[in-house]
């Protein structure tokens, strides 16, 4: 198909920055004269993409990157400052379920209101109304005022209204599955039917799983600009890689010099014995030095996590009254032995965290990788003490 369903060309959105009361008056004059605001924040800059029927697009990016603003532009809630949007088809927006509802109205009256807001003429609503009532499945509550509904009931009604309009493009903002479990199943079933029938999603999500499962394309927004746009798998993997790199930077060991300068508690050294590899059931010793900027004894937390980050076990010096020993000016040492490592074979990390003397604030962590070897077919990651018995 050659015609695009949705085409954005060079979209930019500026928000006026107004600090003073006089600034607001000034802004009004600027807007009336057809000028833009004098001081602006660029929420979006030069965003372009096209969507064809059946080509769902996922928008990803950090908080404040402009994802919601972009969805609002496509939904027509806000007008872009620059660029153009062309839509051929009906756009349904699930920006916030139930946002067009009125609390004093009954569920039924709210269906009429929401349908009018979504651009459905009364003549078109007739047949759809029963469909909406059936999908929302609220029973007699449909005749109660909305203010008596639970929040779950409100979103059910909202989802039922938005989806009954069979939009060509459905814009959603992290609201794929709402309500209780049985309603969530119906939401997902609806979504699959919608996508299977050639429907197109414009989805904004922090879940790369959803992006990869539901979307063919993805667009990564960073500070209001397109960082990357292309097939969903490529873009979402690039986004994840960016985050891993960023996390790694954030967790680099501090080193005593910087720690002292910033007044932080820091792990200086961490060694494990035996290094790197240990036989299952062997003895593991974790030793290290920790720095204190104010000569107060810090708390050390030693933990073992699986290679994917799942915590297995952790214990801190203040839990068992075993404070690190002072060995110099601001330097403290700790040593922790695990006589019988019950870990099942696999890859693990040993982590040491430096905390303040109160054991409240976490300052720094350093880790060493540990591989546990052994021949066993047991499942999980820890051997629990156990015995098989003769059934009574």
């Amino acid at each position, binding site marked *: 198909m050659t*015609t695009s369903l949705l*085409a954005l*060309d060079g979209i930019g959105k500026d*928000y*006026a920055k107004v600090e003073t*009361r006089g600034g*607001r*008056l000034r*802004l*009004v004059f600027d*807007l*009336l004269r*057809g000028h833009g605001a004098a001081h602006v924040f660029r929420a979006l800059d030069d965003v372009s993409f096209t969507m064809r029927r059946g080509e769902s697009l996922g928008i990803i990016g950090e908080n404040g990157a402009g994802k919601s603003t972009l969805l*609002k532009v*496509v*939904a*027509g*809630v*806000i*007008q*872009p*400052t*620059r*660029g*153009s*949007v*062309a*839509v*051929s*088809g009906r*756009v349904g*927006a699930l*920006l*916030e379920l139930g*946002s*067009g509802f*009125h609390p*004093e*109205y009954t569920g039924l009256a709210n269906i*009429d*209101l929401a349908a*009018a*807001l*979504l*651009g*459905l*003429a*009364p*003549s078109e609503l007739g047949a759809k109304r029963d469909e909406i009532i059936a999908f929302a499945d609220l029973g007699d509550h449909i005749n109660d005022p909305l203010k008596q509904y639970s929040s779950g009931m409100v979103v059910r009604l909202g989802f039922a209204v938005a989806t009954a309009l069979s939009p060509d493009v459905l814009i959603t903002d992290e609201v794929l599955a709402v309500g209780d479990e049985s309603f969530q199943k119906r939401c997902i079933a609806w979504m699959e039917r919608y996508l299977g029938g050639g429907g197109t999603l414009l989805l904004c999500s922090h879940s790369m799983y959803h992006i990869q499962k539901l979307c063919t394309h993805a667009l990564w927004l960073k500070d209001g600009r397109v960082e990357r746009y292309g097939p969903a798998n490529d873009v979402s993997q690039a986004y994840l890689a960016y985050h891993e790199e960023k996390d790694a930077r954030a967790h680099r060991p501090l080193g005593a010099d910087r720690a002292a300068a910033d007044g932080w508690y820091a792990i200086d050294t961490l060694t494990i014995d035996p290094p790197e590899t240990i036989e299952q059931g062997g003895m593991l010793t974790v030793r290290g030095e920790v720095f204190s900027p104010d000569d107060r004894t810090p708390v050390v937390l030693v933990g073992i996590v699986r290679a994917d980050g799942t915590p297995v076990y952790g214990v801190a010096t203040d839990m068992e009254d075993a404070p690190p020993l002072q060995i110099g000016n601001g330097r403290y040492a700790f040593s922790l032995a695990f006589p019988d490592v019950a870990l099942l074979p696999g890859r693990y990390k040993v982590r040491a965290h430096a905390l303040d003397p109160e054991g409240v604030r976490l300052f720094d962590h350093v880790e060493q990788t540990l591989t546990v070897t052994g021949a066993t077919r047991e499942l999980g990651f820890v051997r629990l003490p156990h015995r098989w018995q003769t059934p009574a």
Partner: protein
Amino acid sequence: MTARAADGSRLVGRTGRPLSGARDRALFVNFLRRELTTRYLGSVTGFAWALLSPLALLGVYYFVFTHIFRATGFAGQSFVAFVAIALWPWLAAQEALQRGAISIAGYAGMIRKVAFPHEIIVLASVAATFVLQFAGYLAILAVLRISGEPIHVRGLLLAVPVWIVLLIGITGLTFLVAALQVFVKDVEHVLMPLLMMLMYLTPILYPLTLVPEGVRSWVAANPFNWVVGRLRDALLDGRLTLQSTDALALAVAIALFVGGRWVFRRLSPHFEDFV
């Protein structure tokens, strides 16, 4: 900026586009019903209050002006009929402006999340006020007529068009104050004393002939003077002939409407950020 798709399908940016079609009418009817029901839903007296409060006001004016000031000079007409004919349209205008000024804020959640023409909010707010006040007007005219006041029923032929001209002009002004209020919150506070002063400067409680000659032309230039004057001509005197000022008043009303709506349309795309 919005653009039309290559195949000529509909525009995006519903917030700024003009009203048209059955969908927007459905939305208007819905908002109007919402305005009418929510305004009086919480009050015990309900819709009756809309009729009773101007009546109470009329009673106070009657007491103050005929029993304390002992005012005369109503050209042989009763004070109650003289004031009542001008009071209801004034209250309609005043209430429409005051409610309209803050009407946008009542739809803040919707403006942030849903695309719809914002003009409908103001239109529904003004329409709700005028529907109620005009109903009250007809009721008081009927009561006056039954109680023997010389009300000319045929005068409605002119009175109704005068109300329509008033509605057009006030709608334009309400567009203006509603749009400004979103950005400058002082508008609503300035509006009340301003309207109070304007009421006493308009010949509602007194005839124009009592105004000293030196300032009479200034008072007469007030567009609202045309409204009360023409209503009294029609309903009290039974004079239905058109005047040149009628065309002028219509022109002023249309100018206010066009101007107010222009300001509203310029500012409404930015409501989402400020409500």
